[in-house]
């Protein structure tokens, strides 16, 4: 069965099994192995990708349900060889330890910032409640997101003071 969809800005038309989940197609057919499978049951969030602007567990979506949709995986963050500000901030804030949760965590945070560039701490916590991290205790991750928000706001606040 042919699946037409757009992943990370590129149109694909591929043959995909009806049983395949989105994560299977991303990893096995498209070779996008940045997206991880942890639990396979919607609990851990390691497999989080963005579908039409919304964070979704790619282990709980059938590949063919994404026909005609735009998908963003963690590979989309790096542009022209440069890491996204969110990725840099994760590194600077020590929000990456073993790194297993990181791709999913980044995509949950990215989905939040795409819809809401100025989230409160509560909104950040809500956005990552479906992402388990056994290493960082979440605080460093939250700080990393806060830092990106602060940096992106900085110029406009200066404007305001002038």
């Amino acid at each position, binding site marked *: 069965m042919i699946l037409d969809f757009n992943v990370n800005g590129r149109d694909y038309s591929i043959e995909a099994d009806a049983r395949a989940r989105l994560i299977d197609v991303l990893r096995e057919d498209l070779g996008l192995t940045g997206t991880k499978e942890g639990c396979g049951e*919607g609990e851990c969030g390691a497999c989080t990708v963005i579908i039409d602007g919304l964070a979704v567990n790619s282990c*709980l979506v059938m590949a*063919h349900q994404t026909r005609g949709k735009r998908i963003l995986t963690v590979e989309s963050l790096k542009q022209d060889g440069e890491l996204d500000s969110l990725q840099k901030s994760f590194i600077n804030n020590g929000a990456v330890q073993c790194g297993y949760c990181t791709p999913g965590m980044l995509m949950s945070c990215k989905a939040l910032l795409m819809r809401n560039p100025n989230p409160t701490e509560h909104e950040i916590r*809500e956005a990552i409640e*479906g992402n388990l991290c056994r290493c960082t205790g979440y605080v460093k991750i939250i700080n990393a997101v806060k830092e990106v928000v602060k940096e992106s706001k900085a110029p406009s606040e200066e404007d305001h003071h002038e």
Partner: protein
Amino acid sequence: MSNMIMKTPASIDELVMCLKQSDDNTYLLSGGTDLIIKLRNSKIYEGTLIDLTGIDDLKQIKYNAEYIKIGAAATFNQITSNTMLIKHAKCLVQASSQIGSTQIRNAATLGGNIANAFAGADAIPALIALDAMVTILKSDKTTYTKPIDEIIKGSRKNTLYKDEAIIEISIPIANDNCISAFAKLGSRSRVTISKLNIAATAQVKDGTIEAVKIVLGALGTKAFRALSVEKAIENKDISEALYTAFENELVKQVDEAIPNRSSLGYKREAIRGLAEDVYFDLFGSMVRKVKCHD
């Protein structure tokens, strides 16, 4: 090659064509948050999946003077941000906002929650308290509508035939005196979502509770109305003493629902916390808050 096929109807008419060919190995697929896990755990690799998420009509939330009509494939994320539902169906919005995680709410649908008929499902008690009606499409293209409670048979069992699909959930728009609330106990983790939940709707006039519905979930095989609790507070004036009566009656209800189970002691305590949450969410502005439980 796989023996699984996926049908992708784009309209109700196309869905009817798919339903006509349904057999025992046909599965309706909405958000997939229950079904995909079930298929994998049961090692089901054959059959037909009918994906409902490509039918735009099923994803709309509309209203007229009498009803808010939620398409079966509307997600919990859509429900929590709908202003009509926030105004007229607060308990459903509260239940929806506490389901799973952001990722789950972005995919999981109201129709899937009902059809899955899990005893601890969060939307079902809220829908019972709101007198919701469920419209079902048959493979001959006719539809029928039933109260939500009549669709749920028991744990993981609904009354639908293989060639039927839930297409719409209608919530009557009550007058402005009608208020509602939902509370649940349980962690984010799926294995524990079923612990206990409660939904309530009430009509209040001049400090008197004129009508009330209290629905408990995760206590038996399906959510049910706690009639004795309703009776204990109906036609009474809102007060602290009434809160005590409400809480005691709820504890009794839990005792009756699970007489010999090991979880009784725990649920007995838990219901007190939920009783307080719901009572003060409903009537808090009308009564001074009583002292908290330790």
